[in-house]
């Protein structure tokens, strides 16, 4: 296990190095920058600013400087916000993480339960109904469900606040603050769960149906075990093994924010910051964000590789 992790870490560093080069090149070669977009500046002032920001240096040198800082944990300075990129991330990313973590938890919980029951009662009315509803939920665009629920739950029935993270002008602290955040989270979490649940339920249902046909399930039944034990001890564990791959993808998704959901519900998350920075061509921030997602993706993949070795005794340690 030790050598496996060392080897895997080495690969990870190589992949990240390649990814950083790619990300840097993409942004460096994109025509224009933050300064180009500002029509109020004279050409002389623009050249001056480029000199100050170091944008007139050769590409390779700029990459070297960027990497040197990145390795020291400094992802640069946002031009638009005039704050370190890292500070901005820290300010917004946890809001996104909160939404994503809660909705991911509910997505998995509900998908596993529905998937197992639907597989167990394959082709029953429950299974058919669930599959129809799930397809409907998957097929609707997020902005539609989002706006629709705002109209019903927030505007018409006034059960939940329509957007934001806190009520405007609120000074709540402690428990009152937490309660306010939870109330504001409810709608975006519902929408994100609805959107995510479909594919995962189908995935788990499909895996369960395959596993339920295996000989060892027949053995478990022949042993006289309770159906609950057959389903959850024997079948579900095997059905969830392939889902470990998905865990690798969940990690960047947890921190990546959601462009559309955060926009609709006016949630102060990293997705909103990202969209805003795009409009302003705030490249240091965009580059930093892309690198962060790359790092999380690579770590997620590594984690799922390690998890496979923990969860499936057949996967040999190298």
């Amino acid at each position, binding site marked *: 296990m030790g050598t496996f992790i060392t080897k895997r870490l080495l690969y990870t560093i190589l992949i990240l190095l390649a990814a950083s080069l790619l990300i840097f090149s993409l942004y460096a070669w994109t025509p224009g920058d933050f300064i180009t977009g500002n029509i109020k500046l004279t050409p002389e002032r623009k050249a001056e600013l480029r000199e100050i920001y170091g944008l007139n240096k050769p590409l390779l040198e700029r990459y070297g400087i960027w990497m040197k800082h990145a390795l020291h944990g400094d992802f640069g300075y946002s031009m638009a916000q005039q704050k370190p990129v890292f500070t901005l991330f820290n300010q917004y990313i946890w809001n996104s993480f909160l939404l994503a973590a809660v909705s991911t938890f509910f997505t998995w919980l509900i998908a596993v339960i529905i998937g197992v029951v639907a597989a167990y009662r394959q082709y029953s009315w429950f299974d058919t109904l669930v599959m129809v509803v799930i397809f409907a939920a998957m097929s609707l665009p997020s902005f539609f469900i989002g706006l629709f629920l705002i109209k019903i739950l927030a505007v018409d029935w006034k059960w939940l606040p329509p957007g934001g993270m806190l009520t405007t002008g609120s000074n709540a602290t402690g428990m009152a603050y937490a309660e306010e955040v939870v109330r504001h989270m409810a709608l975006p979490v519902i929408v994100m769960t609805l959107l995510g649940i479909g594919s995962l339920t189908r995935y788990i249902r499909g895996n369960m149906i395959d596993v339920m046909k295996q000989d060892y399930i027949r*053995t478990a039944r022949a042993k*006289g075990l309770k159906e609950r034990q057959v389903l959850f001890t024997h079948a579900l564990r095997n059905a969830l093994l392939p889902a470990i791959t998905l865990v690798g993808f969940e990690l960047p998704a947890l921190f990546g924010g959601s462009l559309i959901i955060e926009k609709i519900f006016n949630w102060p998350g990293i997705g909103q910051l990202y969209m805003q920075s795009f409009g302003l061509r705030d490249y240091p921030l965009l580059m930093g964000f892309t690198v962060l997602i790359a790092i999380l993706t690579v770590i997620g993949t590594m984690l799922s590789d390690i998890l496979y070795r923990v969860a499936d*005794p057949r996967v040999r340690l190298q």
Partner: protein
Amino acid sequence: MATADLLEIEGLSTYFDTEEGTVRAVDGVSLRVRPGETVCIVGESGCGKSITAMSIMGLVGTNGTAGRIAGGRIRYEDRDLLRLNKHELRTIRGHEIAMIFQEPMSSLNPVLPIGEQIMEPLIEHLKLSKKAARARAIELIAQVGIARPEQIAKAYPHELSGGMLQRIMIAIAISCGPKLLIADEPTTALDVTIQAQILDMLRQFKAESDMSILLITHDLGVVAEMADYVVVMYAGKVVEEGEVVELFERPKHPYTQGLLKSKPIMGQRQDELYSIPGQVPNPLELKPSCYFYERCEHAMDVCRRAEPTLKGVGEQGSVACWLYEEEAIVHG
């Protein structure tokens, strides 16, 4: 009959509804197993012998199959297994009636340690504590002749060979002291040398505990070695049954005769091994007739028109064949 039967199946019918029609996989099968007796069900693939076993275990219609029991009775001691509710059936399964399967490699859960899989029925049926069950599981592993039982208990199925896994399956099956062990082709997937060991082991446990065995096989060598009583099945029906010696020496049904003729004999060189001509009929196209008549060298007119019933001949055996029906000989 001096002793009461342990298991008595009467007119069992198990059907599979497919898009092309209903397949009568088991069609009115009757058989009995006495305490301490080994009964073999013999027949070709697809003759319904495994489905008969699955019907006894109440496992038809599970594992994604669409079978259903259409009729009959399966009496075990004083209970009709087909009338028991799920809970009652579950307390018999793996406890009083245990089963081992053809494919040991895929019959154990790949992600659970061997020991845990042996412990499960002990905890479920004998209400042992986890600790006691673990100790008993290790004893059972030793009992089925596997060295280093403590380590094996912690091992996973992929780390063991097919023969060892079948021993583990036997350990699970005998763990709760069953009165009846159903063995569905237990040696088919194994090497010949391992086959003999597994059969010896079954015989040994049977002798020690006086359990009955219902052995399902297509291998007449296994039958000769193990059986007290033989039931021959063809296309979902019992065509002949009898004491093993009687059946091997004086087979009555042309199908049984064919089976015995097509068995290679040790030390005897033949240019060509006999095989029964033709193929098993399509189960969807069966009409009231003797299902074997197309392949039978003694086929008569009546065989095509009507189905022979199982009638007693000789001292113990029965056969379902028009050759043995006096009426048919007169009219046919």
